């Protein structure tokens, strides 16, 4: 059937030239690949290149991953050889493909020889055959490239304009991504509408040749200093957003993939809406047919899938088995009894029972719904738990640390005596809602029972609460205000008298009427328990330096404090390592005038970085410098975000598998309904209508699965939140699994899952539309 013989056209002897062209082209392409490979091993870049490859395997990363790998290796290997082989490799690749294309065109372009029959106007399907649409290519190119440029421009414009206004780069990114996706969608729609087909070659060319370069450029930017110096400042807003992820290139390719997805959706929608020759987005009839083909929204199916999602597979199966067996036994006895009295009614019952047994396609449909549901549910639960951890961590870190600190270059012993002026200047910066001076040092803390190392922080009890949660973290029984009023600290009577410790006694004159009260100190819960002290107990703070030089070297300086309170932040590190004293006490202890710096609280924590730079501007730069909380805890948060992203990608594999199930299901449906497709075509349904019918069937499955997944995922999250899964607090320092359902993230998960299933049914739907009308009407 596939022979190239056609009526009136004898297969001509094809000349050899096209094959030579194709062969040479193919060899050149291979040569390009080999050259690139040689270059890789020459630079010893296989390791990094492969690791990049593995990381980027989920997106468009591989190619660029390899290139950045090489560049990294080159930077590592000092002034290594220039990558002169890569240029020829790329050239060979391009020229090779051009030759292959030329060969193909020559090969098929030989003129046919008319032998018999009459030549007339092109008829039937031949009339619609045309190969390449330049206007479609242009539309796709504008779609993808325009989307990228719009994204970059909008991000730059919005993020720059919002400097100091209050809504940060992430919000700007949301707007920019939406705008970019809209452009890609429109480009795809217009292109497909012009050619009235999907035009895969045009789309491929547009994406590969016009879409890839920008993210590729961004990815290799850090590895090429020349480019970085020239373009880095212009693209800084984009780079900044990508850096929030920890691995910027992953961010670029993820966004690129999203834009390609938007383009694909646009192409598909444009095709479906215009395939019948004019814009036709009405779907009433198609939905009518699709709903009869696939009964997804049946209460029994939905309920069954939901129960499986909520309780797991095995228990419902056992229950179902028991119910089925009982039903069948009762039913058979009933029909037998009925048969004695009323054979007609019995026959009817047998007929109904047979009717109820499910077809394989119905089974597949149920499985696909379940598959999509499982994927969406897993994604929602895992992402919500990870968000929970992140929020918990952020809350604890920000409860103890300031959002932004102002520091000073130079000798730490010089301190920042002018901190009141600094605070006055900073107070005028928009977005700053609290500030307090602090002084930081490292000490040993000793009690009668134990000794431990600690970081001591001098704080202003009056204003500390504006910036951190310290006052609120002090456990009942203590009070931060006692740092300023040590005379109020209740003295514990564990010791017979309120006698200062021995070394203090040495310095105090013996006949003093009353020793001044010991200054107060706040300890973390863990530190307090390791020192075995309670509020009112005295502790001694020792600094190894600062006591001057003695005959045997530096003399440690020490001072007695009284525990004014015990605080609990929930972070083991803070609770075991931090102690707080009054600012004046710290100043006199360390002999540092003023403070180490000023801590600030900002209105929007996500915008801390930007506000920090504004603060620095207000202070006119050197000798001052600022650090934001993200910078201080960068590793922690970027690791967390990256982990979340990778988990998301891995779990998406479930959704991809489910999409495969949908492909199989809809393909089976198409095979099952071949005859019906032919009949529908005979009744006047155009190709686009058939595509719509089967897309709707796939979409129904995706919709049902996505909603079930959403519902069960939220149910699980609620369960985890309300009932709680216990964690070992010794290990996690958190009593139960934290959950934070982020609405945007959840909605995006469901939306993307549904879109993926929608895309998955394109292929079978297109196949269905190509069923010839006579195909199903024959052979009976």
């Amino acid at each position, binding site marked *: 059937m596939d022979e190239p013989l056609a009526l009136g056209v004898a297969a001509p002897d094809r000349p050899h030239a096209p094959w030579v062209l194709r062969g040479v082209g193919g060899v050149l392409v291979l040569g390009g690949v080999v050259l690139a490979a040689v270059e890789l091993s020459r630079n010893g870049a296989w390791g990094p290149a492969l690791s990049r490859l593995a990381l980027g395997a989920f997106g468009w990363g591989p190619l660029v991953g390899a290139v950045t790998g090489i560049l990294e290796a080159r930077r590592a290997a000092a002034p290594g050889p220039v990558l002169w082989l890569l240029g020829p490799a790329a050239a060979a690749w391009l020229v090779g493909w051009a030759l292959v294309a030329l060969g193909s065109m020559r090969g098929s372009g030989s003129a046919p020889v008319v032998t018999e029959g009459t030549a007339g106007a092109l008829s039937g399907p031949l009339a619609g055959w045309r190969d390449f649409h330049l206007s479609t290519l242009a539309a796709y190119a504008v779609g993808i490239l325009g989307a990228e440029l719009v994204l970059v421009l909008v991000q730059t414009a919005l993020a720059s304009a919002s400097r100091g206004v209050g809504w940060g780069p992430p919000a700007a990114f949301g707007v920019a991504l939406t705008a970019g996706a809209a452009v890609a969608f429109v480009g795809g729609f217009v292109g497909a509408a012009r050619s009235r087909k999907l035009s895969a070659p045009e789309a491929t060319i547009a994406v590969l040749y016009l879409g890839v370069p920008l993210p590729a450029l961004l990815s290799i930017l850090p590895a090429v200093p020349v480019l970085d110096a020239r373009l880095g400042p212009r693209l800084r807003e984009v780079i900044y957003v990508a850096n929030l992820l920890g691995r910027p290139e992953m961010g670029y390719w993820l966004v690129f993939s999203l834009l390609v997805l938007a383009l694909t959706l646009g192409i598909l929608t444009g095709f479906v809406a215009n*395939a019948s020759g004019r814009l036709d987005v009405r779907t009433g009839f198609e939905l009518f047919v699709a709903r009869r083909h696939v009964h997804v929204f049946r209460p029994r199916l939905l309920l069954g899938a939901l129960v499986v999602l909520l309780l797991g597979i095995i228990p419902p199966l056992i229950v179902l088995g028991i119910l089925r067996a009982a039903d069948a036994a009762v039913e058979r006895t009933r029909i037998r009894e009925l048969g004695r009295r009323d054979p007609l009614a019995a026959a009817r019952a047998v007929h109904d029972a047979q009717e109820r047994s499910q077809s394989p396609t119905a089974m597949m449909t149920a499985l696909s719904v379940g598959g999509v549901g499982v994927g969406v549910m897993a994604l929602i639960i895992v992402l919500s738990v990870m968000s929970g951890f992140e929020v918990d961590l952020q809350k604890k870190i920000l409860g103890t640390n300031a959002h932004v600190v102002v520091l000073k270059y130079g000798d730490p012993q010089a301190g920042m005596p002018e901190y009141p002026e600094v605070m006055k200047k900073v107070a005028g910066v928009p977005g700053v809602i609290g500030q307090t001076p602090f002084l930081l040092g490292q000490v040993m803390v000793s009690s009668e029972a134990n000794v431990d190392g600690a970081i001591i922080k001098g704080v202003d009890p009056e204003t500390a609460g504006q910036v951190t949660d310290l006052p609120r973290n002090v456990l009942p029984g203590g009070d931060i205000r006692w740092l300023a009023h040590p005379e109020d600290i209740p003295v514990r009577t564990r010791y017979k008298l309120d006698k200062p410790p021995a070394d203090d006694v040495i310095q105090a004159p013996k006949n003093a009427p009353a020793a001044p009260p010991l200054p107060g100190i706040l300890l973390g819960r863990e530190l307090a328990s390791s020192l075995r002290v309670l509020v009112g107990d005295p502790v001694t703070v020792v600094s190894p330096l600062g006591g001057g030089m003695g005959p045997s070297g530096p003399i440690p300086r020490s001072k007695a404090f009284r525990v004014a309170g015990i605080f609990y932040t929930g972070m083991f590190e803070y609770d075991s390592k931090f102690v707080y004293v009054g600012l004046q006490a710290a100043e006199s202890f360390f002999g540092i005038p003023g403070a180490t710096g000023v801590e600030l609280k900002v209105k929007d924590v996500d915008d801390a970085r930007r506000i920090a730079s504004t603060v620095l501007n207000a202070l006119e730069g050197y000798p001052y410098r600022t650090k934001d909380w993200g910078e201080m805890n960068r590793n922690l948060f970027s690791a967390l975000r990256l982990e979340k992203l990778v988990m998301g990608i891995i779990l998406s594999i479930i959704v991809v598998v489910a999409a495969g199930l949908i492909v199989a299901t809809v393909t089976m449906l198409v095979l099952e309904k071949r005859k019906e497709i032919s009949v529908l075509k005979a009744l006047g*349904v155009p190709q686009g209508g058939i595509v719509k019918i089967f897309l709707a069937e796939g979409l129904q499955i995706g919709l049902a699965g996505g909603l079930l997944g959403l519902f069960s995922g939220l149910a699980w999250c609620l369960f985890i939140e309300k009932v709680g899964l216990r964690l070992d607090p010794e290990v996690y320092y958190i009593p139960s699994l934290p959950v934070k359902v982020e609405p945007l993230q959840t909605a995006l998960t469901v939306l993307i899952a549904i879109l993926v299933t929608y895309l998955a049914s394109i292929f079978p739907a297109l196949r269905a539309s190509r069923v010839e009308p006579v195909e199903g009407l024959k052979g009976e």
Partner: protein
Amino acid sequence: MAFVQIRELHKSYWLHGKRIDVLRGLSLDIERGELVSLVGASGSGKSTFLHVLGTLDAPVSGTMEVDGVDVLGLGDADLARFRNRTVGFVFQSHYLLPEFTALENVAIPALVQRMERSAALRRARGLLERVGLASRVDHRPGELSGGEAQRVALARALVLEPTLLLADEPTGNLDPVTGEGIHQVLRDVNRDLGITAVVVTHNEALARSMPRRLRLTGGRVEPA
């Protein structure tokens, strides 16, 4: 000009690499409102000719105009509309859609045309009454007898009042009495609505009852 004007129609198949020429330069004119019977030996290409005439199958070469429109040059969308509005098909098997009731099956061409659901169903009900199936509207095709299903198929073909009715052995699977009922409906719609009809049949009696009789032999038609 004739309502249907066919010139030099060629159609070939390839079976295991061998070419089978089914239509060899077939030319034919059919006037508006004619009722034509087409007979011929099995395998002579009657069904193929009917499919080509209904644009379900494309010929290799030749020209064909229906109501002044060159239907072979139409694109997919226009072809679909042509099949939907101008042509009504009745096949040897009923080819009703199994998931839909008789009423819905009849309404489908109207729904394809984006007619309102209620209007389409009303129209379909009227046609089912006309073919004598008012009591079977809510039955699925599996619950209908062969004759009933074929009458539903006929109603479906007529629901949009096509100008050209193509029937491919509509009574081939039915007993003579049931078949005669179908024939009667065919003759009625031709007379009452002026629908041009081409009926392929093996039934000599039916063929003889038609005003114009054609025979397909050697890939061409001749009067029978």
